[in-house]
């Protein structure tokens, strides 16, 4: 009896300690959580918040690397972007041309190939790998490789076209051909997108197609009424990422053309790089960056806003 009661007292006591313990733990865990995310919080404050604020501030100054302190110039840098600096406008239009061509083309090619490689043909695994491989190639290496392929005299592409009696095309030597050439090269990288679409295609329930078969739908109807609508979330995602990525295209132009010929491939990012790291006009470059940031943000928001009308979000 006595033993029993002492035991129950013990359990009561241990319960009390446990409650205290869990209270302590809970209070403790309030800062344990912060402790875990602490490295990121520091990084966030330095590399996101401060950097963003600093960029906006610098864009209102005439800061150069050599200078001691930034000189306040108000909106003069922005005036320069939109009025005096003709190259800013040229590079912006070049970039719009590039984005407008490479993003839709890349999506179309990737989607088509995904459809083809979703069919049950022999060796499709090998084909998928082959199409994916180029997207693994480092952009710097790819640029060097395509620089060689695009040579006007005896470049691989012109030799190939020559087999069909086509005269050599001055791919990177003439302003009217340079941008299409870079778009063509960008298509070499569609593999990654294709893999995303393939995964999406495999996720479409087969019952939908069976039901369509019973209703006597043909292949085109199935594509337009089932496949494409169900793939819109992925198409949407790749559109947004494609826009953000292509607007910041840099390496290919830097390595292959340096912006030439006659500024035909001077992309916005390259122009910004030149201003920042060749001429060290940090204030002006910051203004250039802010403008591109606003454009990308506006485009993303716009695509997002229209997405309700064309993107299918499951079930309901």
């Amino acid at each position, binding site marked *: 009896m006595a033993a029993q009661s002492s035991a129950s007292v013990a359990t009561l006591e241990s319960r009390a300690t446990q409650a205290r313990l869990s209270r302590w733990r809970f209070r403790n*865990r*309030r*800062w344990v*959580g*912060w*402790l*875990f*995310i602490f*490295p*990121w919080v520091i*990084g966030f404050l*330095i590399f*996101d918040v401060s*950097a*963003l604020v*600093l*960029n906006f501030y*610098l864009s209102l100054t005439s800061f150069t690397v050599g200078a001691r302190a930034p000189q306040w110039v108000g909106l003069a840098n922005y005036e320069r972007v939109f009025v005096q600096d003709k190259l800013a406008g040229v590079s912006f239009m070049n970039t719009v041309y590039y984005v407008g061509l490479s993003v839709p083309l890349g999506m179309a090619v990737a989607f088509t*190939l995904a459809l083809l490689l979703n069919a049950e*043909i022999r060796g499709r695994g090998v*084909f998928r790998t*082959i*199409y994916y*491989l*180029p*997207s*693994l190639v*480092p*952009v*710097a*290496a790819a640029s*060097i*490789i*395509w*620089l*060689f*392929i695009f040579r006007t005299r*005896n470049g*691989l592409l012109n*030799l190939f076209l020559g087999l069909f009696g086509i005269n050599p095309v001055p791919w990177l030597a003439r302003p009217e051909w340079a941008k299409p050439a870079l778009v063509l090269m960008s298509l070499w990288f569609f593999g990654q997108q294709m893999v*995303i679409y393939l*995964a999406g295609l495999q996720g479409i329930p087969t019952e939908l197609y069976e039901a369509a078969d019973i209703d006597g739908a043909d292949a085109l109807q199935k594509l337009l009424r089932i496949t494409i609508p169900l793939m819109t979330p992925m198409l949407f995602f*790749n559109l947004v*990422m494609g826009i*953000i*990525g292509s607007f*910041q295209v*840099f*390496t290919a132009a830097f*390595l292959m053309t340096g912006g030439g010929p006659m500024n035909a491939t001077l992309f916005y*990012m390259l122009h910004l790089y030149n201003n*920042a*790291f060749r001429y060290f006009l*940090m204030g002006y*470059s*910051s203004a250039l*960056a*802010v403008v*591109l*940031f606003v454009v990308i943000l506006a485009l993303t928001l716009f695509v997002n806003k229209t997405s309700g009308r064309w993107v299918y979000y499951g079930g309901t």
Partner: protein
Amino acid sequence: MSVSMRQARALGHGLIYLIVSVGAVAMLFPLLWTVSTSLKTVDKIVVTRIALMPDPVAWNNYVKLFDRMDVTKQFTNTMTIVLAAEIGALAICSLVAYGFACIDFPGRDIMFILLLSTMMLPGVVTLVPYFIMWDRLGLVNTFYPLIIPRFLAHNPFYIFLMRQFFRGLPTDLFDAARIDGCSDLGIWRRIVLPMSMPVLATVAIFTFQWAWNDFMSPLIYLSGDKHKWTLALGLNALKGFEGETTVHFQMALSVLMIIPVLVVFALGQKYIIQGVTFSGIKG
């Protein structure tokens, strides 16, 4: 009807085969051309018709490339950056992801929304301020600008990826471990990490590709010091020699840059596909 349908299907498959095969040759040919050119003697590089087989095979090109520039050093420099990025991603980002996924603390949700919003932040707005920060600290032409952000988990995408995976793990296990007196650090190390090998592998591979392929950051921070060059900067320098043919060297160095990525791809193919499809993100 079934016969004609079968015929139609066979015809369709034949057509698909044709298109896909032509496309595959077009995709692969530039790579084969690169390997081929890297093995050609200087006088055979400019060809008037497409000759894929180098004759004679100039293996010597690779040896001469190493004489010409310190490729070994460039390789170790690149690997230093890759390794730092791997440690940052696998150790630090996973800690942060654990905090977001497995601990309930005040302010967590708002911090997570901030994290997600930084994923959409285009790199262009941080280019100049980063440079000024590192310049003021006197750290341009050192590896620190490329390493410190990695150690501070400045990669929201990886944190997001791992956090999603961690949340799918059974919480009963965590509770059991907690009752046994295991700390959060212990749970992270003994339970969460061992159970998260798929997502860790995916992140490791993405990190490798991303750090290995990076061109702009090394260009900005390391191009001033020859001994800090990465392979990509070496390639950039090779291109710059005017008036002499360095094409075979350029191709050889390109091949050397591509091989490690292919090896990593071959080893981790499963995780790459899984990661790409899960995230839907472009490298």
